[in-house]
Each structure stands twice: as structure tokens, then as C-alpha cells.
């Protein structure tokens, strides 16, 4: 497991970790990439199935902006969280309609509704590591950014 962004290691209290995840959900609703990125450590890492390894707050802010522009009504609803030391997992439901540029696709108007898990490591009051797990390629197919060619198993 990569744990870059671990230059400092300040253990956070359980309550503070839960509050940070709840704050993540609240800020997400405002679609403010700068405010969202501010919850990450300056040298934080986001391991993204979409963008690969994203390092640093500025790059993380660009990643949020990309998603908010692609899905202007994107919502992320927390269903459950689990905390162990300075690691946590949030279980989320992500919903939105693709209306902006997304992996070569212009506005498809298609909706996505995905359950996802996000693995976090906290340090010094911020996310040092964030890693979502979900069917990202399935999202590309549902929006139309990837098209299925032929039936399964057919050449």
C-alpha cells in the first residue's frame, strides 16, 4: 500500500477523523474544488482509477474540478464509515448526470449511480492518502465514454 504524503505522522483522535469525513461530505455538496482540496494534506496523494496517482493539493484540486464539471449535479452520500487508527474507510453512494467533458465524451446526459468505498489515511487534520474503490470502467461504459463492441466472448 502506498502511503505517500506521510512526511509527518500526527495521529488523530477517532472523533476528529469522523468529523473530517463528515466535513468531506458537506464540502462535496458545495462543488468547490478548492475547498475540497483544502481537506487534503499539502503533499497528499489520491490514488485514482480515473487519473492514476495524483500528488499534491493543486493536482487534487484539478481532479475535483474535472469531476464537478463533468457531473454538475454530482452527489456523494455517506452510508457508513469504519475507523482504525489513522486509517478509515467511508462507504458512499455517488450519483450524477454527465453534462460536461468526460474522457473524450461531451454531454451524454446519462446518469451514474455507484456505490463506492474510499480508503483514507489521516495526518495532522487532513487526508494524506485517499483511494476510491468502485467500478470506474463501468462508469465509462454507462456514460458512453467506452462503447461495448460485440457480444461477450466474440471476436
Amino acid at each position: 500500500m502506498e502511503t505517500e504524503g506521510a512526511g509527518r505522522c500526527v495521529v488523530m483522535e477517532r472523533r476528529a477523523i469522523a468529523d473530517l469525513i463528515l466535513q468531506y461530505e458537506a464540502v462535496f455538496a458545495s462543488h468547490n474544488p478548492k475547498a475540497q482540496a483544502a481537506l487534503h494534506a499539502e503533499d497528499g496523494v489520491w490514488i485514482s482509477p480515473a487519473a492514476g496517482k495524483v500528488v499534491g493539493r493543486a493536482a487534487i484540486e484539478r481532479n475535483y474540478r474535472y469531476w464537478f464539471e463533468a457531473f454538475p449535479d454530482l452527489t456523494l452520500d455517506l452510508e457508513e464509515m469504519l475507523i482504525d487508527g489513522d486509517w478509515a474507510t467511508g462507504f458512499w453512494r455517488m450519483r450524477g448526470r454527465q453534462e460536461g467533458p468526460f474522457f473524450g465524451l461531451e454531454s451524454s446526459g446519462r446518469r451514474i449511480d455507484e456505490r463506492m468505498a474510499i480508503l483514507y489515511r489521516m495526518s495532522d487534520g487532513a487526508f494524506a492518502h485517499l483511494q476510491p474503490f468502485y467500478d470506474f470502467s463501468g462508469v465509462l461504459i454507462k456514460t458512453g465514454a467506452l462503447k461495448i463492441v460485440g457480444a461477450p466472448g466474440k471476436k
Partner: protein
Amino acid sequence: MTRDEMAVLLDRFLAGMRARDVDAMMAVLIDKCTYESPAGGHLKGKPAIEAFYRAWFDAFPDLQLQQKRRLQDGHRAVVVSTFTATHRGELFGMPGTGKRVTFDVLTAVRFEGTGIAGLCFFYDFAAALMKTGALKVKPV
């Protein structure tokens, strides 16, 4: 169940998976265990889960699962692993291709009574299908 007892149960389940020993895996599940994954869908009860794993291991007989991190909190746990396998047997109607598949997976585990009561897997399933060739796509 204590935290250590839950950790032991999870160790046994994961060891069973690494050994492709379905009986060992089933031994730590409670009868009404639920299972959810992109590949298996929503399953209820040990017989359905057992049937899924037997088919899964037929498709990926050299499956390896490397645990990278584990979290435990109350009666729940999360395991982050890397799945690596060769597609050798039928998968969604497609015969084995001999292609290697590797992906990271997060497993959410819930404990109840004396065993594992729930398993939920999160991973990029469509990408895994593309790697095996069971799903063919092209970008727009």
C-alpha cells in the same frame, strides 16, 4: 466476539481463499451470510456463496490474493488486497483466455455471532472483464 477472535476468523477465510479451499472459507461464515460483489451480485446464504466461489476458482484456478492493509472497527473489518490470476476457465460464458488479471480490491466484512455475516467487495469489475477479454470496448 473479541477483536482478536474476529481477526482469526478473517485470517482463516483469507487463507481459504488463497488456497482455493471453499470448504475452509465456508466454515467461518454463518448460515445466513450475505455476499455482494460486481461479479457475483447479491447472494444470500452459504450454498449460494459456495457455488459462486467454486465457479470463480474454476475460472481463476491460480488466484492469488495479497493483503496490503486491514482495518477493524467494532464488528466490522476492511481488507485491501491485490487480486492476481490467470483466466483459465469459463467466465460469464467465455472460455478461458489464458490472460492475466490484476486489480486492487477492497473487501468489507461484517461479523455476527460466531462467524462472518457479510462480505462486500469493491473493485473495477469492467476493467477486469476487459483484461480477460470477456468484455470488449472501444473509446468514443
